[in-house]
């Protein structure tokens, strides 16, 4: 059997070699500190044209050492970068952060680097010296070493090798195959002994070649019972394009090619086994057992009278359930200062109450504790927000979660609650929570479910009615029902601006600086009822125009909110949810005028009703009625449909601009 395995491995190697071209084989063989004049010529035909810098080689390795029963993780990294132009000189500054604290020591154990310049077809080498290296304590637990390469100019190649040593074996360094610069060759090898079990997570869309092999941990003294076999995992990729930051992306992390790890157990003879979470059951259990999460289970008897007082507060709406009252109390009393699934260090419900602030976990777990005190059935839910990247069912990993919400059973209905956001209503979730997998934390039986962006429908409408008064001016009303996201944003504006400034700014947004249009007496309804969409009412007036022909854009210069500037697209277009927008106009025709021309009715469809635009105008005696609808029925559009999307948007934009022509009767 062993023989076969070897043979198989050999075959893999041969096959691999067969696949690689000459250049790729050269790259694989490249050693730190060994450079030839030819290495300055790069073949960039397969990746971006004209990058500022190119990573020629990015090669990393993580392995363990064992001395005196102490296991250490060693991480080495070798980078060779070519500076293509002056802008790329930025790439010749490196930062190496190293984590340390009292019990886990991390240090930079080796550091070497060179700058190479090609002068008269000879390589001139400059080594980095002490005055190119700066070390500083950037924060409490991080020391950062910065390297600024000497003698760098356009066309230079810089090369860095470093090694870090850490006694904290649970953090196996992740590896990004894709960065801000294109990479010709990226390779990562991880060799970990069998007594450390870990899970591997690979993400991204770049085609990587991976292989696995087995080895043995060398050690000076044999420790009986220690499984010293190692597994050697290796990934490599060639000609990897730079990672692009594009608009309409929830998190670029979702598309970055990367490998990361989670240690699940640590067996060492003579030491108790240490286990880490590999299933959601274990994650759930460890969360509940952790003081920084499970604090809502504590007795907290002092909380009871507070809950009692909140529920029986005579100033609150009588129609509210106790749960709703508690939710409103928590939301309106605590300030949120960050995300996280764990409460802040040294948090207790008592000092959250005292300081009146905390992170999302502090606040929503306080809410949970209060709901439980009021005898509700309620559970915490953990998730990852859209900008934090998606999580996968198969990868139970606490590190990837960053948000806690609560589910409560209120009047036999499930309500999802987030009291950390100041303008969020009872039973509503901010759009960024709709990011796929979420986990209800229940002892021994965590429940996974999906917060599907499909369920995040942002619905809004505008209605304008304009009649003609005696002086031939148009007078009437402007009404808008904001969608949930807009409502929260406008409520925030109302809170932080004086009424006069708010009115003026809003009026300008509606009139688009068209001096003929006046918006006044703006009234907002449901400002304090966060469960409901914010409503806006205003008086609208358009000064009379006595020209022989009047041209009116029935959308009054409104713009489409989707602006794409790039000609090409690398990643899918994510909207984060669905959109349903309706615009209606009732317009009376002034006396003495008749309709000369109106836009055509039109329905424009993108990709199987994924986006639908409807333009419907009805002509009645002395009256026009317009209905415009824009629906986005998918939270995500593939990059391959990008140019069609642009065409669709151009057509919709055209319809937005079209106008009505009124002509004086003879």
């Amino acid at each position, binding site marked *: 059997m062993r023989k076969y395995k070897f043979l198989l491995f050999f075959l893999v190697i041969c096959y691999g070699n067969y696949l690689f071209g000459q250049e790729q084989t050269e790259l694989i063989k490249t050693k730190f500190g060994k450079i030839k004049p030819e290495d300055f010529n790069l073949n960039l035909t397969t990746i971006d044209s004209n990058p500022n810098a190119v990573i020629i080689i990015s090669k990393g390795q993580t392995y363990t050492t064992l001395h005196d029963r102490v296991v250490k993780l060693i991480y080495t990294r070798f980078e060779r970068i070519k500076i293509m132009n002056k*802008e790329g000189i930025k790439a010749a500054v490196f930062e190496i952060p190293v984590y340390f604290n009292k019990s886990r020591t991390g240090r930079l154990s080796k550091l070497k680097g060179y700058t190479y310049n090609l002068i008269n077809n000879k390589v001139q080498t400059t080594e980095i010296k002490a005055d190119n290296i700066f070390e500083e304590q950037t924060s409490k637990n991080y020391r950062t070493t910065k390297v600024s390469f000497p003698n760098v100019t356009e066309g230079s190649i810089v090369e860095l090798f470093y090694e870090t040593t850490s006694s904290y074996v649970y953090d196996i360094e992740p590896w990004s195959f894709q960065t801000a610069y294109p990479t010709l060759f990226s390779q990562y090898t991880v060799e970990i002994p069998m007594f450390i079990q870990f899970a591997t997570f690979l993400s991204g869309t770049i085609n990587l070649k991976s292989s696995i092999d087995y080895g043995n941990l060398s050690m000076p003294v044999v420790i009986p019972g220690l499984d010293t076999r190692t597994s050697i995992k290796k990934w490599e990729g060639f000609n990897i394009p730079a990672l692009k930051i594009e608009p309409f992306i929830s998190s670029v992390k979702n598309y970055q090619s990367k490998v990361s790890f989670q240690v699940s157990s640590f067996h060492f003879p003579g030491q108790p086994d240490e286990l880490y979470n590999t299933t959601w059951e274990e994650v759930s259990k460890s969360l509940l057992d952790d003081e920084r999460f499970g604090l809502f289970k504590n007795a907290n008897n002092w909380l009871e009278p507070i809950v009692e007082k909140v529920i029986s507060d005579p100033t609150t709406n009588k129609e509210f359930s106790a749960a709703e009252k508690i939710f409103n109390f928590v939301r309106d*009393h605590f300030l949120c200062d960050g995300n996280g699934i764990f409460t802040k260090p040294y948090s207790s419900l008592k000092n959250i109450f005292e300081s009146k602030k905390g992170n999302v976990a502090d606040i929503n777990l306080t809410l949970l504790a209060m709901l439980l005190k009021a005898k509700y059935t309620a559970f915490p839910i953990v998730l990852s927000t859209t900008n934090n990247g998606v999580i996968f069912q198969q990868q139970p990993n606490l590190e990837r979660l960053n948000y806690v919400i609560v589910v409560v059973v209120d009047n036999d209905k499930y309500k999802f609650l987030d009291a950390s956001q100041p303008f969020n209503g009872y039973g509503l979730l901010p759009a960024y929570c709709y990011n796929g997998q979420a986990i209800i934390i229940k002892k021994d039986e965590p429940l996974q479910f999906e917060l599907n962006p499909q369920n995040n429908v942002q619905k809004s409408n505008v209605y304008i009615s304009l009649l003609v008064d005696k002086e031939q001016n148009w007078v009437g009303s402007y009404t808008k029902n904001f969608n949930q996201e807009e409502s929260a944003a406008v409520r925030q504006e109302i809170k932080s601006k004086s009424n006069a400034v708010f009115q003026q700014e809003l009026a300008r947004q509606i009139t688009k600086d068209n001096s003929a249009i006046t918006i006044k007496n703006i009234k907002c309804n449901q400002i304090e009822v966060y469960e409901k969409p914010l409503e806006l009412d205003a008086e609208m007036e358009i000064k009379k125009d006595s020209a022989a022909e009047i041209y009116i854009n029935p959308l009054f210069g409104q713009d489409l909110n989707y602006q794409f500037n790039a000609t*090409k697209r690398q990643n899918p277009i994510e909207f984060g949810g669905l959109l349903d927008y309706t615009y209606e106009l009732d317009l009376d025709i002034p006396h003495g005028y008749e309709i000369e021309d109106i836009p055509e009715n039109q329905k424009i469809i993108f990709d199987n009703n994924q986006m639908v635009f409807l333009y419907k105008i009805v002509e009645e005696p002395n009256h026009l009625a317009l209905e415009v609808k824009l629906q986005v029925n998918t939270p995500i559009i593939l990059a391959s449909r990008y140019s069609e999307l642009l065409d669709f948007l151009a057509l919709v934009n*055209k319809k937005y601009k079209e106008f009505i022509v009124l002509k004086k009767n003879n």
Partner: protein
Amino acid sequence: MIFIPKKYTIILLFFCLNFHLLAQNLASNLIPDSLLKNAHLVIREKNMVLNIESVSKATYSLKTIFTILDASENNRSLLTCNYSPDYVLKDFKASVYDAQGKLIKKFNSSEWIDRVANDGVSIFNDDRVKLIDLEQKKYPYTIVFEEKYLIKNLLYLPRIQLYSNYKEAIEHFSLSIDYPDDFPIIFEYQNGFLEASSTINSKTNQHHVEWNFHHLKALPVEPFTPNLTYYSPLLFIIPSQLKVGSYQGPAQTWQEFAQLFSKIYFDHNQLNPPSKLVQEIQKLVENESDTLQIIKKIYKYLQHNTHYISVQLGAGGFIPFSTNYVYKNKYGDCKALSNFMVALLKTQGIKGFPIIIEAGITPALTLNATLTGNLFNHVITGVIYNQDTLFFECTSQTLSPGYLSDFTANRRGLMIDENGQGGLIATKSYTENENVYYNYLNGQMTNDGTIKANLFSKSSALAQDFDHNLYFSHAPDERLNIMNKMFKYLKNATISNLSFNVVDSIFPIIEENMDLNIPFYGNITGKRLILNMNMLNRQFNVPLDSARIAPIYSGKAMTFIDSIVLSLPENFSLNELPTDFILQSDLGSYESRYKIINNNLIYFRKYIRYGKVLPASDFNSFRMFNNKIYQRDNFELIFTKK
């Protein structure tokens, strides 16, 4: 019952009383109504006490009590104390109180975060910062913040700016400065800072000066203003002597200041180039006899061989790294690179000198003709050539030789001469005659309103700063995306065949050429076509503001010329050709003309902005001028199908 020994009860009582007093003082409803207009934050009390003891010692205590009225100023709850070896943080305290003036929490020093002060530029510096965020859920709330510093280098003396923020009213502000009789201080007042005179204590021989301000109303945020520092009352505290590292000398006039900095910059043979470098330069210019060409070649050498990396260490980062350091590493900060340039010039017997300058803010602050005040944050190089001075930005790898961008142009800096002479010098000033943005667009419109066009642009001097950055700092793909965004009025336009041409000069030029496809630009409904020929530049609309407070500034001096030729589908005829439109004012001039030649519609627009700062009282005429242009710029031509 808790037993309290008798002798402590008095102390307790005292604390209670004290607390009671404090509680009363800090309640938010005690803020006079007259201060609430435009205010989102009220400084209840600001107390600065500065005691200058000697050339290398001053103590500075600052106590600020402020009430944040609403969420719009919630970022002010972040408190920071910057410190460094020359600016030692001796003490810091903060506490927060609710609307009733009741203490919410006092923060002890372990709750503050301590980290490196990242200035966004330096790769390394020894400045650090302590910070804490006291944000509260319920507004208003009041923060009491106390800081105490020991200043060892008087270049770090604070500059007092009366209004440091918009939307902030000041109830009481007191400032007191003490200094010994044998170490005189001069005060320099700008923008109408209240003048005060000192009293001397005959026993201690200490001078004492005091300023007190009461009930300063908040400044609203207004559009089209220069930087607040440009017009807020300012006080500079100018000591008779400065000590930077081991260098000491008088520094109250520019001449003295230049003399001191001459020592700091040129001592220790910092300029002496290694012989290898001398040879390199010798070789570079050996076939060149024209001095101007030699200067340019040397600057190009510097640009090609060095780059900017800021390392701020020791003596507050005032002493530049030597020529040798820059030569070895090929990088340095602005001081080191400017000195390097001076050293390179010197090898050819050409005289150059560093100029220290306040970069960034445009329009720049006016400098007092004689008195100093540390306004500087940057260094450039000057070279006298043919009775004129040429200026070089040594931290840029790409600027044209002899050209300063907006960063340092149009202002005064201090020239530092090797022999200790030196003084104020005006940098290059670029006016609307040099700063020109020219566009020529030639296109055809199809039957559905889509335009296919070629656009040629040519920008010069300050008008090309944007394109310079676009061309030198961005990859081609990024360039396209940024340019797409620039065409505000050309929705969904796509750019192809983009090319650039850069012409080096002391008034550099960038030419761009591209093809544009603008879907449905002409707006067609039924038989009518609506078309705005002004496709590229449109003036902004200025809203009414009857209570304007701040001076008016709408941008640097610049000329915009657009020339647009469009051939139209034959079946459309123009209803009416607008007459020529010409506008003249103190602010600038504007003209807009239409013409039809054959089937081509021709549009010409020229707008010159003089780039002046005007008093608030001119707001209405500013508004009228802009809004007339705004209207004409948005003029729409109407066509009918034949």
